């Protein structure tokens, strides 16, 4: 499994190999003039992410009390 950096021209012209790459577990960072615009994770890589381990780490940290836990936004202007 590897991560490749590609641009939108490659997405248009090489989409078949990108689809194949995703199917074999590769991830892609789509860049626009060197600036990352999107990270595309293969379904296999996402499946391998161990949520048991991840949420054990989340629960191991002290609970967070935020003043604005919903991140509601106030009216502006």
């Amino acid at each position, binding site marked *: 499994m590897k991560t490749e950096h590609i641009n939108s021209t490659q997405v248009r012209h090489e989409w078949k190999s990108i689809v194949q790459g995703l199917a074999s577990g590769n991830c892609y960072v789509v860049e626009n003039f060197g600036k*990352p*615009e*999107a*990270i*595309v*994770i293969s*379904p296999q*890589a*996402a499946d*391998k*992410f161990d*949520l048991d381990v*991840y*949420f054990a*780490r*989340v*629960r191991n*940290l*002290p*609970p*967070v009390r*935020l003043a*604005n*836990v*919903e*991140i*509601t*936004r*106030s*009216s*502006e202007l």
Partner: protein
Amino acid sequence: MIYLDANVLVASVALVVDEDRTEQAERLLRGREVFYTSALGDYEVRKHLAAHDDQHLMLLDALINQKVRLNIAWDVAIIQALKIARQFKAQLAVDSADTLHVGWALALGADTFASFDRRSGPRPLAMAVGLKVWPKAGPEDFAAMSRLKPKRS
């Protein structure tokens, strides 16, 4: 495809006990769907957790690198948000960031908008533009949506 609002990301990287939000977020992320968030959501989580343990932000990095796709194409999202603003005109009592989140979800082709925010209006707005909401819509969501009647131009 499910778009995650910032408050769902917060509950995914920090233990938020209100309404068992972390438990709900975990159940959502265990589903087989594809999850997306935006540069806006990523920024809002980092801002809100800035005063807390750095480990939360390390967890966010792990989540975004391995489970949740991050989209940072602001321009397309802004175009969608402005279309929403033109569609709803004065009825759009939803602020800029919420409108942008919903616009971003549309720009990505999401079918579901995941948000715990039942106060400031992104959920009814998402429903009004044809998205499903998570957690499941309740009477208050439908009541708020009915106030968002688009004006014909």
